[in-house]
């Protein structure tokens, strides 16, 4: 080996590499297009490897993990009250909704129940984070299809909701407001009336989107019949949330899991759509935003008085055991499986995030569509990168 000079060896290697490259380039059975990890349609760092024949997709494969932050491991070295700070950042658009199922799981292990007022306020804020999350989707779908104006309206009207969340919790995006046994503090004065006017603005925004996008012929031609997911396939792939309901499956944890917060106390409806296409997913989310505004209004009307914190020991030690609690988060079913060995922190936490499962349908649903439809489908499936990678 030493007899061959080093530069000669290098020339040989690079020659081999060039040959290999030529052979790859001469292949004519399609083109590989990397959509992402840096691409505006993935709003984050999702990567989708597509094989294209012209503009038609032969196969698409999502690659995730570019934003993995190791939350499941990180929570093992933190105490229970510290954990809500971390898990706020999983689905960063609807942060408060991330805290709730974890706190509920911890409460279940400790056999504590939060007082009714705390439960109701939790539900109100849960629905408000749903609105804050989904309004952005309603505008963003327009951007992905080329109508830039819609997203600015979404940002404008989401602001009203975020302001209310900030007024109550002190944090716009990461409230860290939920506590084991109750809440950090009570609602500020005048908050209820202001929130109601914010809900009016949300409803007006929904009407606006309905005329601006949903009623637009071009939007319909771009979204109808694109990315159809039949109910059976959706169930097999473990889809949840609006993606599942848009395929006609009437399943909503807010209604179907009993004794969860205060949803059973108010009158509301689960929206489904039989089509299962991108249009249906948009439509269902739009209706859900309206419904969420109605839920908030009704809850605020009947807000019970009383304490916001149950009797909880000063140093929280969770007794040994296992608990699983999942809720209907803005993106779908989110659940925490908490294993405790009786320490200050959990032994193991498994986080079930909706986007991770929702994105798993990408290879199935993207076979044979065109490149612009890839964007439509990605936008309508609606994922948050932090929710995929945790």
């Amino acid at each position: 080996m030493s007899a061959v000079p080093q530069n000669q060896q290098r020339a040989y290697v690079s020659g081999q590499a060039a040959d290999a490259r030529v052979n790859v380039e001469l292949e004519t059975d399609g083109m590989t297009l990397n959509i992402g990890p840096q691409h505006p349609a993935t709003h984050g760092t999702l990567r989708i490897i597509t094989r294209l024949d012209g503009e038609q997709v032969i196969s698409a494969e999502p690659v995730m993990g570019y934003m993995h932050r190791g939350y499941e491991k990180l929570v093992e070295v933190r105490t229970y009250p510290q954990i809500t700070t971390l898990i706020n950042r999983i689905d960063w658009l609807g942060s408060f909704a991330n805290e709730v199922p974890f706190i509920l799981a911890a409460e279940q292990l400790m056999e504590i129940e939060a007082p009714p007022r705390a439960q109701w306020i939790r539900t109100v804020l849960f629905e408000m984070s749903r609105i804050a999350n989904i309004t952005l989707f309603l505008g963003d779908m327009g951007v992905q299809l080329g109508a830039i104006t819609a997203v600015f309206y979404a940002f404008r009207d989401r602001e009203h909701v975020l302001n209310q969340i900030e007024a109550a919790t002190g944090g716009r995006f990461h409230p860290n407001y939920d506590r084991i046994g109750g809440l950090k503090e009570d609602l500020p004065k005048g908050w209820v009336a202001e929130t109601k006017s914010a809900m009016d603005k949300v409803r007006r925004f929904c009407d606006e989107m309905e005329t601006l996008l949903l009623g637009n012929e071009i939007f319909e031609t771009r979204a109808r019949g694109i990315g159809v997911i039949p109910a059976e396939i959706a169930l097999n792939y473990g889809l949840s949330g609006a993606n599942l309901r848009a395929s006609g499956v009437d399943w909503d944890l807010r209604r179907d899991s009993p004794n969860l917060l205060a949803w059973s106390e108010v009158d509301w409806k689960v929206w489904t759509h039989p089509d299962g296409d991108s249009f249906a997913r948009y439509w269902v989310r739009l209706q859900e935003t309206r419904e969420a505004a109605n839920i908030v209004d009704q809850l605020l009307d009947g807000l019970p008085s009383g304490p916001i914190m149950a009797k909880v020991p000063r140093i929280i030690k969770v007794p040994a055991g296992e608990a699983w609690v999942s809720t209907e988060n803005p993106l779908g079913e989110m659940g925490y499986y908490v294993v405790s060995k009786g320490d200050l922190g959990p032994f193991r936490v498994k986080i079930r995030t909706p986007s991770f499962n929702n994105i798993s349908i990408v290879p199935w649903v993207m076979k044979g569509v065109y490149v612009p439809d890839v964007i439509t489908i990605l936008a309508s499936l609606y994922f948050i990168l932090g929710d995929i990678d945790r």
Partner: protein
Amino acid sequence: MILAVELAYWQLLLIKVLAVMVIVPTATAVIVQTFLFKMMAHMQSRLGPMEAGPHGALQLLADGGKFLQKELLAPDRADRRVFFLAPAVVLLSTFLLFVVIPAGPNVVAEDLDIGIFFALAVSSISVLGILMAGWASANKYALMGGLRAAGQLIAYELPLVLAVVGVVIQAGELSLQGIVRAQAEGAIFGVGLIGQPFIFTQFIGFALFLVATQAELTQPPFDMPIAESELVAGYQVEYSGLQFLFFYLGEFGAAFAFSALAATMFLGGWYVPGLDVDGGLISNLVGPAVLFVKTMLVAFLIFWIRFTYPRLREDQLQTFAWKFLIPLALVNILATGVFKVVF
């Protein structure tokens, strides 16, 4: 000539070239500042640029200055000569468009007999530049953008030309100056008070022209070659600095030129009642201002659509063009021909 001194041909040519060189960037700047910066911002409940100059009026200087400082980059495997030539080709087509647009009885760089034909022909050169850019960039997104632009050309060029045919039949002229004259001297049901802007008879042609223009300028709802959310920026994706600026100059300069063409063909051009069609200092001075106002009106329509609508898919554009726009344009031509013969 309105000028007192006789100029040699080369002197006149130099003046004309300089005038076009000044007018194109100015027109582009006005379009970008008015519509892209301010109107879009106000439509989207934003303020847009506010810091540079009064109400952000000098923002473009800052932006232009920034672009000029940037390094000109080319990808490793790009076809460098074609890559650097492409923006110039796009810009060339915009410059040529301005040559035939009349802004007064004598204020026109070159009043060709086949003015409108020339304008539509040179506007297609830009697609060549876009295809060159897409191919030479050695980037898959750029290539797809370039090919989409080429595919789009077939779909919208035909309605664009057919929409104009109605105007040409009615005016009996291909020269843009002649079309303005025909509108100025025409009469609506015998009342010649405001002349006869062709929009009253050619309203279908006007609508078709606006739709096709939208595609020609690669703006939403027909911006598939650029498509920020799909192809990131299509054929522009590898360009930086001055060359990127060239593409923008080309795009918005063409937006101004096409609005001016529409204003000339359908809204009476530089003529308003009271002006002398045949010449005179007043007409030559007021004409450009009148044309500018009308152009901005048309541009407002074009940009209103741009900021509102989502984007069609490439195949949907083809369907739309072949099954709807072209038959409609043919019917329009037929009707115009019948009326021309009957009346």
